[in-house]
C-alpha cells in the first residue's frame, strides 16, 4: 500500500512537469496552429535561467584565507556574503526560487522574439514544415547553451530548508514508511498553482476569452475587429513562460544539461497527443496520467511480470490511445482530423 502511494507521489511531480510543458504546447497549437518542436528547448532555457541566477548570486571575489597562517592562501567568497553576511548566504541558498523572477521576463522576451521573428511566418505553412523549422530552432538553442555552459549537467541545489524528505505518511496517519523529498512535493504543488493560474487567466479575463474564441475560430474573431495576431504573440510568450517556470523549478530534481529539452519534448508531445490536440484540460490530465503510470510501471513487482515495461509504457499508451481513441482522450472535434 505504502509502495503504491509512494509511486503515486513519484508520478505526480514528473506528471507535473509533463503537464506544464504539454499545456504550453497545446496552447500554442490550439491558438496559433503551430506544432512547436522547439518547446522542449524553452523548458531547457528555463532550467538554465536557474543556473544563471545561481552563477550571478555566487559571483565571488578572492579573499585572503585567514585560517591558513603558513603561506598566503586565497579563497573565493561570494560578494553577497561579504556584503550582507548571513543574509547573503541565505539569498544564495534560495537561488532557484529567486530565479523565477528572472524566468518570467526573460522567457516572455524570448517567446515574443521567437514568435515575431520566426513562428508568425509559419502560420500558413504545412505542419511538416513547422515541425522542421522548430526542430532546427531547438538544435540551435541547445547548441548555444552547450557552447556557453558546457555539456555536463550543472547541479543547482534547492534551498537547504527543503533539502530533506517530508514524512508524508504521518500526515495521514499511515506510519512512517511513506517519506518523500520536499522539493518534489513542492514541485507538484507549484505545477498545480501554475496550471490553476493559467486556466483562471484563460477563463476569467477578457484576454483569455478572446484567446479561447481564437482557438475556436480565429477568422471570425479577426473579422470582429480584434487584432488576434497580437494576442497570439502574447500567448506564445505565455507558453514560453510556463515552459520556463517548469524548467527552472525542475533544475534541483534534474541537474540541467543542454539536451534535457529534447528528452522532455518527445514525451510531452506524446502527452499532448494522448490528451487530444488542442485540449488544455486533456493535456494536463494526460500529463499526470502518464507520469503516474510511468512510475507505477517502474515498480519492481510490475517489472518482474512484464520486463522492460517501465521503458516503453508511455509510448505503448500513446499507440493504444491513438488507435482506439483517434482524437486523444479529450480532443475536440475538427482539430487535426485525418
Amino acid at each position, binding site marked *: 500500500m505504502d509502495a503504491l502511494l509512494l509511486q503515486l507521489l513519484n508520478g505526480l511531480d514528473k506528471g507535473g512537469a509533463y503537464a506544464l510543458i504539454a499545456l504550453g504546447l497545446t496552447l500554442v497549437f490550439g491558438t496559433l496552429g503551430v506544432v512547436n518542436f522547439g518547446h522542449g528547448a524553452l523548458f531547457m532555457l528555463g532550467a538554465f535561467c536557474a543556473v544563471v541566477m545561481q552563477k550571478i548570486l555566487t559571483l565571488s571575489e578572492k579573499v585572503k584565507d585567514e585560517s591558513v597562517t603558513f603561506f598566503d592562501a586565497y579563497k573565493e567568497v561570494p560578494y553577497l556574503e561579504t556584503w550582507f553576511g548571513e543574509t547573503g548566504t541565505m539569498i544564495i541558498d534560495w537561488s532557484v526560487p529567486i530565479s523565477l523572477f528572472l524566468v518570467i521576463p526573460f522567457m516572455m522576451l524570448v517567446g515574443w522574439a521567437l514568435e515575431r521573428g*520566426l513562428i508568425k511566418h509559419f502560420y500558413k505553412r504545412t505542419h511538416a*514544415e513547422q515541425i522542421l523549422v522548430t526542430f532546427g530552432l531547438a*538544435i*540551435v538553442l541547445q*547548441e548555444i547553451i552547450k*557552447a556557453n555552459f558546457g555539456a555536463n549537467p550543472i547541479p543547482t541545489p534547492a534551498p537547504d530548508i527543503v533539502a530533506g524528505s517530508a514524512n508524508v505518511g504521518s500526515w495521514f496517519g499511515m506510519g512512517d514508511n511513506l517519506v518523500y523529498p520536499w522539493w518534489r512535493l513542492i514541485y507538484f504543488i507549484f505545477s498545480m498553482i501554475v496550471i490553476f493560474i493559467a486556466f483562471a487567466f484563460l477563463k476569467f479575463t477578457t484576454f483569455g476569452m478572446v484567446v479561447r474564441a481564437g482557438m475556436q475560430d480565429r477568422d471570425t474573431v479577426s473579422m470582429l475587429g480584434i487584432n488576434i495576431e497580437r494576442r497570439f504573440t502574447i500567448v506564445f510568450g505565455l507558453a514560453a513562460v510556463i515552459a520556463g517556470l517548469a524548467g527552472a523549478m525542475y533544475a534541483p530534481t534534474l541537474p540541467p544539461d543542454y539536451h534535457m529539452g529534447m528528452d522532455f519534448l518527445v514525451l510531452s508531445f506524446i502527452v499532448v497527443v494522448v490528451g487530444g490536440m488542442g485540449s488544455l484540460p486533456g493535456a494536463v490530465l494526460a500529463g499526470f496520467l502518464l507520469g503516474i503510470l510511468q512510475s507505477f510501471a517502474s515498480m519492481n513487482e510490475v517489472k518482474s511480470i512484464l520486463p522492460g515495461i517501465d*521503458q*516503453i509504457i508511455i509510448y505503448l499508451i500513446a499507440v493504444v490511445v*491513438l488507435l482506439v481513441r483517434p482524437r486523444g482522450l479529450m480532443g475536440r472535434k475538427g482539430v487535426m482530423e485525418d
Partner: protein
Amino acid sequence: MKKFFANQWLVMLVFSAVILTMPIWLSPIGAGYPDLLQKFMIFGIFAIGFNILFGLTGYLSFGHAAFLGVGSYAAVWSFKLLTMNVLPAIIFAIIVAGLFSVVIGYISLRRSGIYFSILTLAFAQMSYNLAYSVLTPVTNGETGLQLERADPRIIDSLFVEPTEGLPLTNFFSLSLSGYEGFYFCAAFLIIGFFISLRIFRSPFGLKLRAIKSNQTRMQYTGFSTKPYLLSAFVISGMYAGLAGGLMAATDPLAGAERMQWTASGEVVLMTILGGVGTLIGPLLGVGIIKYFENIFSAINENVLMAAYSGLPEGLQHFLVTVSSPFVGEGWHLTLGLMFMLVVIFLPGGIMEGFDRIKRLLMKPFSRNKDAVESAEEGH
C-alpha cells in the same frame, strides 16, 4: 535536355559514372577518403529510401532510424552465427527490417498527419529503449553488439581455418576495407537509385503522389490507399535495413544509439535540405551534411587563425572569435542554422534553389508557362 532525362538508361549511366568517380573528383575538396565516401553511400541509400515514403506520399516518419538499427543488428548476428561474408548479412538485414516495417507500418498507417509522425516516433523510441534494457541478450545493451573470437560462425567454420584475432568482413574473399568497401556500397547505391527511379516513374509512384496531393479524392476514384502506403513504407524500411546492413558490413558492430529519434531526425534533415520528392535531392543533402560534419568539426581556432591570416590583426581576432562557435564542437549550431534557413527560404531544398536559378535564367524565354507553374505550386 528533357529528352535526355526521359531515358532512364542514360540517366543511370551518368549517375553511375558520377558515383564511381567520386574518389577522384572529391579529393580536391578533401573528401576523397574511403571512410567518408562509405558514409555518403550508406546514408545516401537511407535517404533515398526515406524519400520514397516522405517525398512521394508526404507521410513524415520520425522513426526510420529504428529500421536502420534493426538492419545493423540482423547483419551483425549473421556475422556472428553464420559467416563473415557480407552477402547473407545484407539479405538478412533487408528481410528483418522489411518484416519489422510491415508490423510498424501496418499499425502506424492507420493514422495520418502528425499522428502518424508521433506513432512512428513512439515505435522507434520503444525499440531504442528496449534495445537498451530488456533485449540486452540480443542487442548487448549499452556496449553494442560486437564480434567475438568465440562466435560459432557455422558456415565459415566448415571452410575457413580460424585466424588469429577477429576475422574481417569479406565479400567472397574480397576484403571490404577502404576503397573496396566504398565500391561495394556504391554498387548498392546505384541499384537503390535505379529502383527509386523506376518507382518514381511508375504508375505505382504516381499513385503515391496522388495520395500526397489528395488522399480522399484518391479513395473516391476507387483506390484503396492503404496497400500503396504500406508498400511504400515497407520499401523505405527495407532501404533503411540495407543501409544498416552496409553500416555493419563496413564496421561490424551495432549499437542502440543508431535507433534514437535524433538519428531519425538526421535523415529527415538530409532529405529536406536536398529537396523532398526529388530523385537526386536527398543524395545532395546527405553529401552536404556529411561533408560539413567532417570538415567543420575538424576546424579549430588555429585553422581559423591561418584562414584569416592575411587580414589585419584586430580584424583577424574578431573574425576568429565570431566564427569559432560555429565550427569544431559547435558544428551542430551551423547545421541547425543552415537547416532553419533552408526551411524558411527554400522549403523545396537545394533542388528548389536550382529550379529558381534555372527559372531566373529562362525567364525571358517562357514567361507565361512559368507563371502558371509557380502559381500552382504556391497552393
